[in-house]
């Protein structure tokens, strides 16, 4: 086993760990905002590490660029949808909170 393969495996395992932690968070965290946090963390870091591992495994610069852009697009999409869900949830709850304050 060469050094490269070892690094690839380590990167993939770290990525899988983040996905596992994210899934655990989605299942166990109490409310929507904390769950969103867990989910986007898994998307960002888990996919990032797996993408890095795969790029190293394929070891062609062109494929690495493609994988990296895939990760970037995924980051944009996931953070935007996370933000929109959080905003929707916040606006849905807003009137209720005002009433409680009164």
């Amino acid at each position, binding site marked *: 086993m060469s050094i490269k393969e070892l690094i690839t495996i380590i990167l993939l395992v770290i990525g899988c760990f983040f996905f596992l932690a994210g899934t655990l968070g989605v299942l166990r965290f109490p409310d929507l905002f904390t769950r969103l946090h867990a989910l986007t963390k898994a998307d960002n870091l888990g996919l990032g590490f797996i993408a890095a591992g795969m790029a190293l495994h394929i070891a062609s610069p062109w494929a690495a660029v493609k994988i990296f852009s895939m990760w970037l697009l995924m980051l944009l999409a996931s953070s935007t949808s996370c933000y929109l869900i959080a*905003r929707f949830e916040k606006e849905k709850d807003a009137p209720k909170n005002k009433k409680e304050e009164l």
Partner: protein
Amino acid sequence: MIDILLALLTIYLALQCLLAPRLPQTVFMFFAFGLALALAWVRLGAVDVAITEAAVASGFLGVLFLDALQDFSLSASPKRRGAGKDSATQPEKQGWTSYLPGVALGVGLGLFLLIALEATWKMPEGGGLTAAVAAQLPQSGVEHPVTAVLLNFRAYDTWLELGVILLGLLAIYAVGGVKLYPRHNNVADDPVLQQIMWFFTPVLFLFGAFLLYIGKSGPGGAFQAGVLWGSIGILLHLGGKLVFSVIPRWVGQVLLTVGLGFFLFLGFFFLARGAAVFEYPPAYAGLLILIIETLAAISIATTLTAIFATLNQENKKEVH
């Protein structure tokens, strides 16, 4: 080993999809099921089907399901339920006719399953028609066997598929996309959503065009590109930029029918010149297929956008 796990996962997700107690769970199980199915297609070496499965079943149908879920949650909310109480308290007539559609559907699907099983049983050894397609491939004008079959050898089927999509849209138009509770989308003018919309529109367009062009020599083609282009329309619609209220009505109608129409025109054009229907001269076949695929992708994209725009109740008022 991976294949067995994947098969078990797919069956498990399908069962969960049917048995999940609540509607949102069913929908999300369906997403997961679609993705597992796409992975299974990749493992089987059918990348074309995998892309279509992921794009149509998980992507487009998912969007429609989420939209329907929102409608259901709205119609089942306590306020609405109170309004419709008097109709609910009436004794409902549950005659045997109310089970008829379900029974008919069950029998039909059962028969279909039996036919499919029998066809799988009788699958000829040695790959079926693979050799025949490979022998005729140089004449088809493209290098990818799937595209050659879809757009040249069995072009009639693909033409009918385009017709089926259009028919679906016409059925939705005929029902009128009745919306009981029109609402207004106040998230649509969100600055982040607007920015991401303008960023993703060219990216999706480029990726769709790439899939369209790569269909000549690899997995890709009109349906996959059409779904990606259609997702641009859906994204714009969700962001409050209503495509069908911007373009004139007749332009929309032309875009909806141009794929089917040009395909039909080409078929009859060569029929009139003495060839069979959808038989292209080998010299122009590649170019013709590219034109057909482009127009078909435009039509599919417009149809999907129109389906979503008609069914989505947000911004409903402005559409008409």
